[in-house]
């Protein structure tokens, strides 16, 4: 694995008053912002191709994949359920206020259900997992990188893309839709609880009114689009972690940049995916 050209995240922050040594990156001059941006995308592309190759060629790391499914899926479930539930309450409160003003309070269950399954469930799941899993993967791999553990894996003739990156990315890809289902479920449930506390409404009535007119096209595309969110989170977190340099500061930067970039790209991808879904599943 060649690691000589890792601009941006790889540069150690000099201490105040530090001398610029001959041959150091400061003396050599950093590439411009546009060049750094292009190099980052180029490196990301190379990284992704290596992961794809490693993921689809034997030996397969099934045990590590199972560990990551548990780490990324099961252990994110409480947080995602909590965030989904809280969002359901907020939607219920806001929608009640707005719909009552326009004399459409009877549409409240449908407003909650459609808001949750179309957008808030998937995006909240994407952002919560970006925070929890993105930071975790970024920091863990960065820590392994700066302590030469990733080099040690490679020196032991084990492909680190196959052992470390591929299982994490596949686990993110597979777990995001399942976590989204949990966020959707808790969002709708807490939306109903919030409404039922104000005006009596049975769960059956809420479900009947909420899902009236709903089809699989309302449910499946928004849920499966989160696979792309998982791919983005996994790839960016692994990439930022495995290219880190610079000791403890580098680990911190990798964790932060993993969360920030993964969240940003999840939101940007959502814009594109929502438009695509509206075109393909009118």
């Amino acid at each position: 694995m060649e690691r000589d050209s890792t601009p941006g995240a790889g540069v150690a922050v000099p201490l105040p008053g530090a001398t610029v040594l001959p041959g150091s990156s400061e003396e050599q001059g950093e590439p411009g912002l546009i060049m750094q941006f292009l190099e980052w995308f180029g490196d990301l592309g190379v990284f992704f191709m290596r992961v794809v190759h490693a993921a689809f060629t034997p030996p397969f790391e099934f045990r590590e994949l199972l560990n990551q499914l548990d780490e990324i899926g099961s252990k994110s479930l409480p947080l995602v359920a909590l965030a989904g539930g809280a969002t359901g309450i907020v939607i219920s409160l806001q929608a009640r206020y707005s719909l009552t003003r326009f004399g459409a309070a009877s549409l409240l269950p449908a407003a909650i259900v459609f808001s949750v399954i179309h957008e808030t469930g998937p995006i909240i799941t994407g952002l919560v997992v970006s925070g929890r899993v993105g930071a975790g993967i970024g920091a863990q791999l960065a820590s392994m990188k700066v302590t030469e553990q990733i080099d040690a894996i490679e020196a032991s003739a084990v492909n680190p893309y196959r052992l470390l990156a591929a299982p994490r990315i596949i686990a993110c890809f597979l777990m995001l839709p399942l976590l989204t289902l949990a966020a959707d479920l808790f969002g709708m449930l807490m939306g109903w609880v919030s409404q039922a506390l104000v005006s009596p409404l049975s769960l059956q009535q809420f479900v009947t009114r909420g899902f009236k007119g709903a089809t699989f096209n309302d449910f499946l595309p928004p849920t499966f689009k989160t696979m792309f969110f998982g791919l983005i989170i996994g790839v960016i977190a692994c990439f930022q972690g495995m290219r880190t340099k610079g000791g403890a500061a580098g680990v911190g930067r990798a964790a932060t940049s993993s969360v920030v970039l993964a969240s940003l790209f999840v939101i940007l991808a959502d814009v594109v995916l929502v438009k695509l879904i509206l075109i393909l599943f009118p």
Partner: protein
Amino acid sequence: METINQVAPKKPKRPDDGTPAVSVENVHKSFGKQKVLNGISLSVKRGETLAVLGRSGTGKSVLLRLIIGLQQPDSGAVRIHGEDIVGLSLDDMGRIRKGMGFLFQHAALYDSLTVEQNVAFPLEHHRPEMSSAERAERVRNLLAEVGMEGSLQKMPANISGGMQKRVGLARALALDPQILLLDEPTAGLDPISSGEIDELVLKLQAEHQMASIVVTHDIHSAKTIADRLALLDKGNVVIEGTFAELQSSENEFVKNFLKYS
């Protein structure tokens, strides 16, 4: 004490046809504008130990990383048993690395695994034919060989630097390598631990007849464990030979290096 080879994986030894086990030919390596290796050439035969000495920042560790393929040279060839490894894919490089052991300067043990699991790691990935009992026995023997048989279940964070290096050495030997690369094996250790590591390397070298390259600042350690020494300065070899040949050199840099070591 049992020896490692009692449960070593069965692997045909490469016949000694006179090809150097490791050969570095006119290798250049720069980082940005900083030239680290400047046309260096070295070779090591099977059963021979070469110590690479030099001041900090002269490219000793980079040389080892080029030999194991963790970095690529800007130009020149790195041959392992005659095969040029420059530009090989990760999977092809993996095939070469199975015959090599690498001890990192800070041991680089996997901090989430126990001592036993660290040593078992290469075996789990490359010796699928071994049963768990055979693997466990081999790990115990490797750790016994480096004097760490009492620390199987300890985590790397809970053992000293010298112990970590012993475990790193056991891990490097797990696949019964033909080439052993040691990066500063005695750096940061007290004199007794350094001496113990030197004796251990000598013993393992006698048992396994590996081609070894030891990067070190420690001239005493180099004198003890190496057949030949190579002194680096400004990215190239200033002198190469036995310790006696270094001592008799009239080169000012060599004299200064020996004087202050």
